[in-house]
């Protein structure tokens, strides 16, 4: 289905998208407020550790599912799992892009203010996080579409319930994150 390098790259992409999605939610400052004191107050080290741990765990989950579904070749199963994840990763990327674009008016306003072309009033929005229901509906619809396609690919390629469950589970994780209020300031 996919070459090995592509499979690995997809696993990495899904992990990085997960990191970015968490960063956009109020879970992120909550997590950092617990980690930074443990890292002797070093924010950078805490952030690096959290990112590295998330990426490693995601890759391990990916590999573990491949091991659980492989009949003969681990890499063949890994490739099939990655193919199932591809539409979900694409949907998550689109959903995150839509969220970032919602911050565009704010970013443009800040830029014009820094160029003193605009007196914007309050620079930050009243709240850093928001839940625009229309945007949320769009994001959830994207993820569900990705899940349906991913589950079909998993069923058709591996014929094992574990890979379908992995695809669905990944989507559930992303949906849970996107249901949180998300930042409109970055």
């Amino acid at each position, binding site marked *: 289905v996919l*070459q*090995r*390098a592509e499979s*690995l*790259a997809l*696993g*990495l992409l899904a992990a*990085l998208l997960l990191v970015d999605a968490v960063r956009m939610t*109020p879970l*992120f*400052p*909550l997590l*950092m*407020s617990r980690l*930074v*004191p443990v890292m*002797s*107050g*070093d*924010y*950078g*080290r*805490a*952030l*690096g*550790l*959290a*990112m*590295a741990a998330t*990426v*490693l765990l995601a*890759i391990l989950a990916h590999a573990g599912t491949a091991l659980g579904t492989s009949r003969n070749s*681990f*890499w063949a199963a890994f490739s099939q799992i990655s193919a199932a994840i591809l539409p979900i990763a694409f949907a998550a990327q689109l959903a995150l892009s839509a969220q970032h674009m919602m911050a565009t008016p704010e970013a443009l306003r*800040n830029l014009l*203010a*820094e160029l*003193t072309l605009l*007196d*914007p*009033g*309050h*620079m*930050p*929005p009243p709240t*850093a996080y928001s839940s625009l229901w229309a945007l949320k509906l769009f994001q959830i619809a994207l993820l569900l579409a990705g899940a349906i396609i991913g589950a079909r690919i998993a069923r058709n390629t591996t014929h094992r319930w574990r890979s379908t469950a992995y695809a669905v589970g990944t989507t559930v994780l992303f949906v849970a994150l996107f249901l949180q209020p998300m930042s409109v*300031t970055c």
Partner: protein
Amino acid sequence: MLRMGRCERLSIAAILLTVIFSAVSGCSAGSTPADTPSPTDEQPVSGPPGFPEYAYRSAQALSGYRIATARKALLIRLPCYCGCGRDAEQFKNLADCFFEQNGGYKEHASSCQVCLEEAESADRLWNDGASVRQVRELIDEEYRGRGKGTETPAVTESDEEAVRLETR
């Protein structure tokens, strides 16, 4: 033992490099000193010990709140140009972006680039040996025009002495 071709080894290397880069870039960028506030610090600290959750929104936010805690006396003498001056009741100076009237922390600055940058600039200028008046002039020069500034009184001689004593 899994047999891997060159492509797989390169991909695994790429993943490992990403993980290492995440860890290293986190260490090198946005590092802040471990000076979490404590009532036992020499500088007077207003507000409860420890920072609220929103201060951890970014490395810059955490740095800003640390600076605000350590340099509150200086920030009180500086205007804020983020636009909060439109609400003259709540915002009279840069410190009001970080602290409530009762001394507790305020969320406003945690997502305001201008407030955080002003605090960083003020701290840097103060550490470079600038007087309160000089810091005020440079802040005015750099940030005026970004938004309606707060109506902060001009710096006087007594302010210079007061800030020097409170931030020693």
